[in-house]
């Protein structure tokens, strides 16, 4: 703790003394017995010997200055100590007006430093402020880094904030003319159609009861696209026909993916009936290509064209869109990279297919551009375990990348 060094009576009748010379300057240390300064008394010049050890932190009475016995002439303590409180106490009337103003200047520069620091890094902990003043500032929304504290060491106290006006939220100038909105479009109320209600009920039921988990793979579609290009010199085959065929053939090898939960048993279907989600004007429908594993791509594509046409015109019979064993949803034409789909019961899995996108990939340490398609399988964990789904996805990816595997 820093302390004040007081003028002592160096002779029995001394009342005042003049500091002739400071032997220990500011920031210099001393030990017991060192002569701190020389003091001219009413009779003679005496040495002021230290009775303690420490470092002179601040000289309050400079050489040539006078001090009465009992008045502080310096502050000493450990190097680097905060002596602002002690300096603040030094407001008493002394004969050294000059010295006093210097002291106050010291306090003031300290304040300025404090506020400058805080405005830069906004570290509120470094602003000295009484609890009450802090509360008042908070209630009035005052930026305390802008307030000059008048308490000891620059502490912000009640009087410094009580007369400050309440600050509205900080203004940030933005260049625009505010528009008064007079009219608004009317809300449109659409009664729920039976179709919407059924979609809502079925998908809610699926999402609530089936614990979905999702696996995504990126597939290099180079070979599929090349094959399609080759075939399309003669036929006009949709990409979905290829996807359905490859998925159907892979499902044959992974029966658990083509399955359903039936009360206390799991049925692995003996058929591969693949539904394709088709958007309609109001809702969506899932027309089905039955036994897709046994059909060729040409037939699948023909059936798809018919089914999609019927779907768009609301002409599908219930047997054409119910009881699929697996569903594919393709949003690639909308530019969707990847997404997750909700399982379409009674199936236990659904494949969400994104767009084919030219993507840089690393191959043999080289960056090459490939047409990449991302596929995400949503699976019902009650039926399908993660490893099974992963094995299916790996197989599916391999088959897409090498379509020849589909005929194995």
């Amino acid at each position, binding site marked *: 703790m820093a302390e004040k060094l007081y003028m002592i009576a160096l002779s029995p009748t001394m009342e005042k003394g003049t500091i002739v010379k400071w032997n220990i300057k500011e920031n210099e240390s001393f030990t017991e017995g060192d002569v701190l300064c020389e003091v001219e008394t009413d009779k003679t010049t005496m040495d002021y010997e230290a009775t303690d050890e420490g470092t002179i932190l601040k000289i309050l009475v400079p050489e040539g200055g006078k001090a009465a016995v009992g008045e502080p002439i310096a502050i000493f303590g450990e190097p680097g100590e905060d002596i602002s409180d002690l300096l603040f106490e030094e407001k008493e009337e002394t004969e050294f007006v000059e010295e006093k103003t210097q002291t106050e200047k010291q306090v003031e520069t300290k304040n300025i430093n404090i506020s400058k620091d805080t405005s830069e890094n906004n570290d509120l902990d470094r602003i000295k402020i*009484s*609890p*009450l*003043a802090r*509360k008042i500032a908070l209630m009035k929304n005052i930026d305390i880094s802008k307030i000059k504290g*008048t*308490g*000891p060491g620059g502490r912000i*106290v*009640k*009087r410094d904030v009580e007369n400050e006006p309440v600050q509205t939220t900080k203004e940030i100038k933005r260049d625009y003319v505010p528009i008064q909105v007079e009219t608004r479009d009317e809300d449109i109320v659409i009664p729920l159609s039976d179709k919407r209600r059924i979609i809502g009920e079925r998908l809610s039921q699926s999402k609530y009861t089936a614990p979905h988990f999702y696996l995504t793979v990126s597939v290099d579609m180079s070979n599929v696209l090349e094959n399609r290009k080759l075939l399309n010199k003669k036929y006009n085959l949709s990409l979905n026909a290829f996807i359905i065929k490859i998925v159907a053939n892979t499902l044959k090898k992974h029966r658990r993916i083509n399955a359903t939960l039936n009360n206390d048993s799991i049925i692995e279907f003996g058929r591969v009936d693949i539904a394709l989600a088709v958007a309609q004007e109001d809702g969506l429908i899932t027309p089905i290509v039955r036994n897709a594993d046994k059909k060729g791509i040409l037939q699948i594509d023909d059936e798809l064209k018919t089914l999609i046409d019927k779907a768009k015109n609301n002409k599908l019979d219930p047997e054409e869109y119910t009881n699929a064993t697996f569903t594919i949803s393709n949003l690639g034409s909308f530019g969707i990279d990847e997404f997750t789909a909700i399982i379409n019961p009674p199936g236990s899995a659904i494949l969400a297919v994104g767009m084919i996108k030219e993507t840089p990939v690393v191959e043999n340490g080289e960056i090459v551009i490939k047409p990449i398609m991302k596929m995400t399988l949503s699976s019902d964990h009650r039926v399908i375990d993660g490893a099974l789904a992963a094995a299916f996805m790996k197989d599916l990816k391999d088959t897409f990348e090498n379509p020849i595997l589909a005929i194995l």
Partner: protein
Amino acid sequence: MSIITMREALRQAMDEEMARDKNVLLMGEEVAQYNGAYKVSQGLYDKYGEKRVIDTPITENGFAGVGIGAAMAGLRPIVEFMTFNFALQAFDQIVNNAAKMRYMSGGQFKVPIVFRGPNGPAEYLSSQHSQATQTFFAHVPGLKVVAPGTPYDAKGLLKAAIRDDNPVIFLESELMYSWEGEVPEEEYIIDIGKADVKKEGSDVTIISYSKPLRYVMESAEILEKEGINVEVVDLRSIRPLDEDTILNSVKKTNRCVIVDESWPFVSVASHVGWLISYKAFDYLDAPVELVTSEDVPMPYNHNLELAAQPSVDKIIKAVKKVMYI
């Protein structure tokens, strides 16, 4: 209303209670035939006789123990210590028996006893006879500690202490016996555990009790002339402590000085200071200042003796410090 001394106020309280209840008795050194070392029991021996006003030998631990036994047996003794400096002899009886008997007997015994006498520094009594002992007693659960600062409070609180079924340490002061104040003719009681706002104010709260209250009132008057509006809270009771009155005042003024003539370390003042910092933190505009006796044994030299204690000058300095002026 008549103006009477503190001495007379205390005498009236004992007289009234002895007349009201035959179980009340007074015992202590010089209380009977000599009418009390400080003449507080003036006339009681003549009035109530030697069975109820009893001179004891100089054996504080002994007669404090006799008093505690009498209280357990159903009497209501008032034990006078010639000074609370001597009560340290009886510290074992007070702390280990009086304070704990009700608890340790599972409520089977009550100890309706009052220990009273002058406490704190007087003049020229040196270190061993100038101690403010309230902190020693206030520390002990089971003891009530009361320290009035006016004749009015002294009478009302002593009557409450005599009627209380628990041991009460009732602290007076040699220098206060001759202080005068208004006391009504009719009977009244002041509840133990209620502080009193001796002066309303808005700028700063000064909390005090017992003898220093006088310096606080003088300081308040001087500060008033300088335009500083002081609120004075007189604790009156140290245990139980009236937290609400303390906190309400500090919440109003945002500043507090506590004046306590005991030593500063683990004192009533330091406890109240902590309480304010804990329960009124957001209301404080300045650290709570304590004005206490210096942390040294009381010097014999009269100038040093005065310098070691709280004074009007020290109180005014402290007030200006918490007001940042």
